């Protein structure tokens, strides 16, 4: 039991904006009161936030592990984690090892993270890595929009059966949500193609278009009452002029919920790399008017990154552009995956536009409950650089200084210099914790009310937002002090959130013969066993 005394509490879920009050903790939960005499943390003058929630990151699984193998040069330069009595060994950098991932997230006050892209076929591997990621609570989204069994059903117009297949696949992967990546494009990539026109049939199909995949999946997810809406990576990621694709996609989603992942990568105008410009205003205008949507920023920061995505065709293009390493893993019947190390440079016109667009979206989208802080780690930047973005959001003068360092040619292509909005601490608490928790449907996360999980980050006041949010005074996970002044104090395992949507058990009779024909493992070996998960929590679909 613990009392955190006299801190300024930022709990947007309850409208608390810097209110001085005690927070009491017992048995891992926040409670109304604890008896006198129990441990106290004197938080007078400190700022109390709900633990951070990352709605979109890549921290575990076959793709990330492939990236680790591909980039030993990054590991060599990265921060080392020494083995001590309280800590396991590890390496930071763009693709941190699992233990380091837990320490780095907890070290900046984050306590819940969601791995964004998991094929069912290798989901066992993803869960093994998540189990080896200490301190954090976790969940993952399973990849669906290029699953050939589903696309074949959409071709036949059998949406009802597709719904049962989706539910079955979610449970087979032990996932929490559904991710769609470049709908139809990755399936076409299996023959070296792509899908860039939203209403033209996907190669190999006559009745299936990217728009049809998107709208069908969003509807299915809503009908299955999955707590997190369809998590969508649109077509034409990264391509100049792609904002029209994004608008078209968002229009097709009207009437359903959807989460637009790393929106920054989908808000470009122009016709080619030489004319690329920001279209964040057009995207934000549409987004502001449509409350069925949430998004995460997918912001870019200058420096080294590793691009890892299920978007195979885009990665082939990026490899051709950079001439650097290229990794690709196509996953039978389900999805693809590409890996290309990348450096974002301030002197590069395209990179400068990308940098600006991420910040612009965060500033132009008015409702902080609908846009969340991410960098699509490690695609746009590493997650441990979030505090740099927070500082830029909170300080318009600092932002203007940074804009001055960009090449002059970029200024007419971006709107960032005209934006004067500054985030308050209250709004930072929303985009880093309360908002993503709500979008994920996690009622006990992202808030400090009685009954919530006692995941709490406590910060010193500092005018430099980057410093403030990089070095929390204390971080509590499940009521235990896990980080104190930058030191790991205690490492416990985390839990995993999953959902179990209902489906007709007879769907297995439909899947089994297809499976024998199209897969290379037996049907019974395909689903992830529940025992493989570390402390699974089955979230209701209601």
């Amino acid at each position, binding site marked *: 039991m613990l009392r955190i005394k006299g801190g300024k509490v930022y709990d947007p879920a309850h409208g608390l904006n810097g209110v001085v009050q005690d927070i009491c903790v017992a048995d891992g939960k926040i409670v109304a009161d604890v008896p006198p005499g129990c441990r106290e943390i004197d938080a007078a003058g400190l700022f109390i936030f709900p633990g951070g929630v990352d709605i979109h990151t890549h921290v575990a699984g076959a793709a990330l592990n*492939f990236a680790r193998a591909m980039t030993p040069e990054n590991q060599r330069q990265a921060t080392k984690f020494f083995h001590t009595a309280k800590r396991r060994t590890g*390496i930071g950098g763009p693709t941190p090892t699992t233990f380091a991932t837990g320490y780095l997230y907890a070290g900046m006050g984050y306590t819940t993270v969601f791995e964004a892209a998991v094929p069912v076929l290798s989901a066992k591997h993803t869960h093994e890595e998540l189990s080896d990621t200490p301190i954090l609570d976790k969940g993952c989204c399973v990849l669906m929009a290029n699953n*050939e069994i589903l696309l074949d059903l959409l071709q036949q117009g059998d949406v009802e059966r597709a719904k049962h297949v989706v539910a079955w696949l979610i449970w087979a992967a032990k996932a929490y949500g559904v991710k769609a990546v470049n709908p139809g494009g990755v399936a076409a990539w299996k023959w070296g193609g792509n899908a860039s026109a939203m209403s033209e049939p996907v190669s190999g199909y006559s009745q299936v278009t990217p728009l049809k995949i998107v709208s069908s999946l969003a509807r299915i997810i809503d009908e299955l009452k999955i707590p997190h809406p369809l998590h969508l990576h649109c077509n034409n990621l990264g391509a100049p002029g792609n904002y029209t694709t994004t608008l078209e996609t968002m229009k097709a989603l009207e009437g359903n919920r959807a989460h637009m992942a790393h929106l920054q990568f989908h808000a470009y105008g122009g016709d080619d790399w030489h004319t690329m410009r920001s279209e964040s205003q057009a995207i934000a205008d549409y987004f502001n008017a449509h409350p069925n949507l949430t998004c995460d920023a997918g912001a870019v920061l200058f420096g080294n990154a590793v691009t890892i995505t299920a978007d195979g065709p885009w990665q082939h293009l990026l490899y051709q552009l950079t001439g650097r390493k*290229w990794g690709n893993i*196509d996953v039978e019947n389900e999805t693809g995956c590409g890996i290309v190390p990348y450096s974002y440079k301030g002197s590069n016109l395209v990179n400068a536009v990308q940098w600006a667009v991420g910040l612009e979206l965060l500033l132009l989208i008015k409702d902080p409950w609908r846009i969340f802080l991410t960098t699509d780690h490690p695609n746009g930047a590493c997650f441990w650089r979030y505090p740099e973005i927070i500082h830029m959001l909170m300080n318009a003068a600092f932002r203007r200084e940074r804009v001055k360092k960009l090449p002059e040619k970029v200024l007419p292509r971006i709107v960032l210099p005209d934006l004067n909005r500054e985030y308050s601490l209250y709004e930072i608490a929303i985009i880093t914790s309360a908002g993503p928790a709500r979008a994920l449907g996690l009622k006990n996360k992202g808030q400090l009310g009685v009954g919530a999980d006692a995941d709490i980050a406590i910060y010193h006041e500092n005018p430099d937002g980057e410093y403030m949010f990089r070095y929390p005074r204390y971080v509590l996970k499940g009521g235990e002090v896990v980080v*104190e002044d930058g030191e790991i104090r205690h490492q416990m395992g985390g839990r995993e959130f999953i959902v179990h949507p209902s489906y007709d058990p007879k769907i297995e009779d439909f899947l089994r013969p297809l499976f024998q024909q199209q897969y290379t493992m037996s049907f019974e070996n395909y689903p992830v066993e529940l025992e493989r998960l570390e402390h699974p929590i089955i979230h209701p679909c209601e």
Partner: protein
Amino acid sequence: MGGKVSCTLGEIKNRADFIVYWGGNPAECHPRHFTRYTLTQKGKFTPNGRKDRTMWLVDIRETPSAKAADVFMQVRPGKDFEILTTLRALVKGQRVNEAAVADTGVSLQQLQEFADGMKKAKFGVFFFGMGLSMTRGKHMNSAAILTLATELNAFTKFVAMPMRGHGNVTGSDVVMRWTTGYPFGVNLCRGYPRFNPGEFSTIDLLVRRDVDAVLVAGADPGATMPQPAIDHLARIPTIVLDPKVTHTSKIAKVHFTTAATGVSAPGTVYRMDEIPLTLRPALKSPYPTDEEILKRINAAILKKSTWMPVDDQADALV
């Protein structure tokens, strides 16, 4: 150059119409490969199975795998890198010195035919074995074939995959990566992982006599490593975990007889395409599993006082 363009084995089953085995003998070393994944399976887009596919075999001698191939290309030992580099040039339509090619044991005409076949394929794949990756040129050979596959994607769909074997070597590689950031050859002596194949890989450590104890699990280095490495294994305390007597267990100081994983012990094995499979034991064993033994050794070690720096200051603050 760098990276790897690959896929899971089901993609080969469903799509591959051009299959190349290079420096390997799957008929004897991976006997189920042809029938389960590559040649005879009827996949979604290969409904006629073997008839829909063309297979090339590249090796220095005619092995039993040659019977399965449509074309067997015999190359002169140690010339794989030159041939692969020539193929990269031919694929891109670059000029090639015919006299230099003659030295490889293959004619330019045959290489041109090979290159044309690859480019015409709808979905091609290279499987490469230790006859390529562990002979003259070593990792440069692997890099050359991976690069050839990468570059072919400018024309058609092409992938490459090493023919890994030896028990769960892929699984070890996968777990090492997520725990240490590196696949093998990892040194933890400084309290954090360092990676340098050639310095920290097992054979090098043994030959240099850098290590004074060895624990062997799921491998038989006594059968495959160079003699100076085996000599050192015999010299120092070597502990072997194995269900049966092996070359290594015969020279070891301690041999724990273990339950056989997959037969009488559960576990997870990673396929060569890094897809994990659950192993369900069919039998019971009186012997402990590898995992049980390692956990008990670890528990015993934890009881001893630690040699590493303890966060004294940190403790004082709590």
